[in-house]
């Protein structure tokens, strides 16, 4: 008797659960309720600042267009997020509007096939030309800028610099000379944070302005497989630098486990003097370490020639409309993009999230209250000493660069074999893209 009751209850719970399925999709019903109202879904990455900015934009946009509501969804960052975006695009299951990287990652989305061509839209005329090239495929524009330009450079603690009487270095030798003094002063000269591997790449990626200055057109040759990191001493400098700071003992002792958050704290507290990182991280640094906005400066990765030194810049990510968005939603989506790429949009964005660099929309200005590092970046831009990073000039970017940089920067592998390994890594990517000459 008892047994049959158990069997029954198992069955019953199974059927109950099945019946409940449909109730469960309650959570997944996101259809708009008609009545002239349009509801847009907007997919962004889950960095807190991105989500804040996206929600700010959505709110202000709806305030202006009460008929259109925008619902923000988030996805993971990094390669996992890339996969989600690609999967959803390829299955025509993308949100109505989505935010994603510009440059080489944008190119990998097969924009001609998957995205709506926005070339004729009014906002394109208001968009910064540099940014425009990063969301253009076969001379058609596909995106509106989301946020600010940022740089890959070296953030430094100005207090440490003042105390030791140092000057911002323009050449690698000057940088190493500074490092020696900083070390003698009892501070870690260079902070590295291989606990988050992506942060290891700055010496290589942030050096691109110097490479381009030394051999103009390098990116194009690189795309055609005519130059390589291992065989071109100028390009290899990034890997050499990584090895040098490690071999000279200029790196913080716990570099292998340090995370971004720790590294920013070390820099803010002056436990470390310099940190090669993306300038946009200043927002987090200031949030986590209140009162440090004017203590931290930014300089470009030093090269060989002081006169030619300049900073490598990353374009903001773009907001795109997938080809699967049609009808009313398409019209509403275009309106939303128009708002994002307008001075009002910049204001809305800036209210939600502290701007960390120049806007990519004409007519937008930075408030005076921005942190010192952002002002330093702006100075490079004003002096025409800035250029886009390699990933915006060439579609070729190997996925294993961060691991290779960690190996070179931790002394597991030397610079030259490291560069060589990266060249091999890149080959797969180029073949995957079907580029000529690989």
């Amino acid at each position: 008797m008892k047994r049959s009751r158990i069997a029954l209850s198992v069955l019953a719970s199974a059927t109950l659960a099945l019946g409940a399925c449909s109730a469960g999709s309650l959570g997944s019903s996101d259809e708009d309720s008609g009545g002239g109202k349009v509801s847009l879904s907007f997919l962004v990455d889950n960095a807190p600042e991105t989500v804040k900015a996206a929600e700010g934009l959505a709110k202000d946009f709806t305030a202006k267009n009460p008929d259109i509501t925008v619902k923000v969804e988030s996805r993971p960052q990094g390669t996992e997020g890339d996969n989600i975006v690609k999967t959803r695009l390829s299955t025509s299951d993308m949100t109505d509007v989505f935010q994603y990287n510009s440059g080489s990652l944008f190119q990998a989305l097969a924009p001609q096939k998957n995205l709506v061509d926005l070339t004729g839209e009014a906002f394109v005329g208001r968009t910064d030309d540099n940014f425009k090239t990063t969301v253009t495929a076969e001379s058609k524009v596909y995106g509106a800028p989301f946020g600010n330009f940022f740089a890959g450079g070296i953030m430094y603690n100005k207090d440490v610099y003042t105390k030791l009487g140092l000057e911002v270095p323009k050449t690698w030798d000057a940088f190493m000379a500074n490092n020696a003094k900083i070390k003698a002063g009892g501070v870690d000269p260079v902070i590295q944070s291989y606990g988050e591997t992506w942060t290891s790449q700055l010496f290589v990626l942030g050096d691109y302005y110097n490479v381009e200055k030394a051999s103009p057109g390098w990116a194009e040759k690189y795309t055609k497989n005519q130059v390589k990191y291992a065989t071109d001493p100028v390009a290899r400098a990034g890997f050499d630098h990584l090895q040098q700071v490690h071999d000279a003992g200029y790196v913080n002792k716990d570099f292998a486990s340090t995370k971004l958050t720790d590294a920013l704290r070390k820099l803010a507290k002056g436990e470390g003097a310099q940190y090669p990182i993306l300038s946009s991280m200043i927002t987090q640094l200031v949030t986590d370490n209140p009162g440090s906005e004017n203590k931290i400066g930014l300089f470009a990765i030093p090269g060989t020639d002081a006169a030619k030194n300049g900073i490598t810049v990353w374009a903001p990510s773009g907001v795109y409309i997938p080809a699967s968005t049609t009808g009313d939603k398409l019209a509403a989506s275009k309106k939303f993009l128009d708002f994002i790429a307008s001075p009002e949009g910049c204001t809305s964005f800036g209210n939600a999230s502290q701007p960390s660099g120049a806007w990519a929309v004409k007519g937008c200005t930075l408030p005076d209250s921005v942190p010192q590092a952002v002002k330093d970046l702006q100075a490079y831009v004003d002096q025409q000493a800035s250029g886009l990073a390699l990933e915006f000039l060439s579609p070729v970017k190997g996925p294993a660069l961060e691991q290779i940089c960690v190996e070179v920067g931790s002394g597991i592998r030397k610079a030259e074999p490291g560069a060589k390994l990266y060249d091999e890594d890149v080959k797969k990517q180029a073949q995957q893209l079907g580029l000529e000459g690989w």
Partner: protein
Amino acid sequence: MTSRRPHLFMSVAAILLSVVVFLVPFAFILLTAVKSRQQASLLDFSWPTRFQLVQNFVDVVQARDYMLIIAFINSTILTVASVSILVVLAAMVAFALQRRRTRWTGLINFLVLSGLIIPPAVVPTIWVLQKLGLFRTMPGLILVEVAFGLSFCILLFRAFIATIPRELDEAAIIDGAGPLRLFFRVILPLLRSVIITVVVVQSVTVFNDFVNPLYFLPGDQNATVQLTLYNFSSQYSTQYNLLFMDILLITIPPLLMFLFFNKRIVAGMTAGAIKG
């Protein structure tokens, strides 16, 4: 069981060791979950300078439009439905497989083991789900979890069905029971302790599954609890206090379920072992 009086020394040693090995990490999660963001970012094992239990809890629950609540509903449905189906289907297969040896047995064994071995192919699975109109639906994800979990459950059931004597089947058949009656009335009830094991293990697996919901049921409004972890951990900036609060909250349901079933496991086991 094997001896009558408790080993005092062993007991003390085991308890002390268990505290160090198993409780300290849990205490760490707990402490970090109630710290302020600044203190949590130090990631050390220290007493919180300020207790923010309520505030962190509210922050986590409220984050992204009460996503955690929706996620809990979704995860519960997913877990209950897929585990119930799994138990019945896997037990049926295991029963037939263990009892009847035919030329298919080899193939079926092969398929079962394959399911355990082969890493599932994500994109083709999405493609199939789309053809069936099940992609991005809860039933679709439930069936995916069933498909991926079958092998494990079949193996577990098969091992235990082997310990049930065939005489029992024969007695039931002589009494005129058909296959369904034999299975549901005689065999399934005998599997109670294994069923509890399967339910506990699979519920935890499905509830803690992270990859499958990510791909087969995308979208924030469909989020399961594990996906909410992504809200608080991210590549660029990390709020460890909220992250650990989230870990803490989503660990509670499996914990409760275990505490509930734990007694049953023990009861079921002692019924079998001591009275026998």
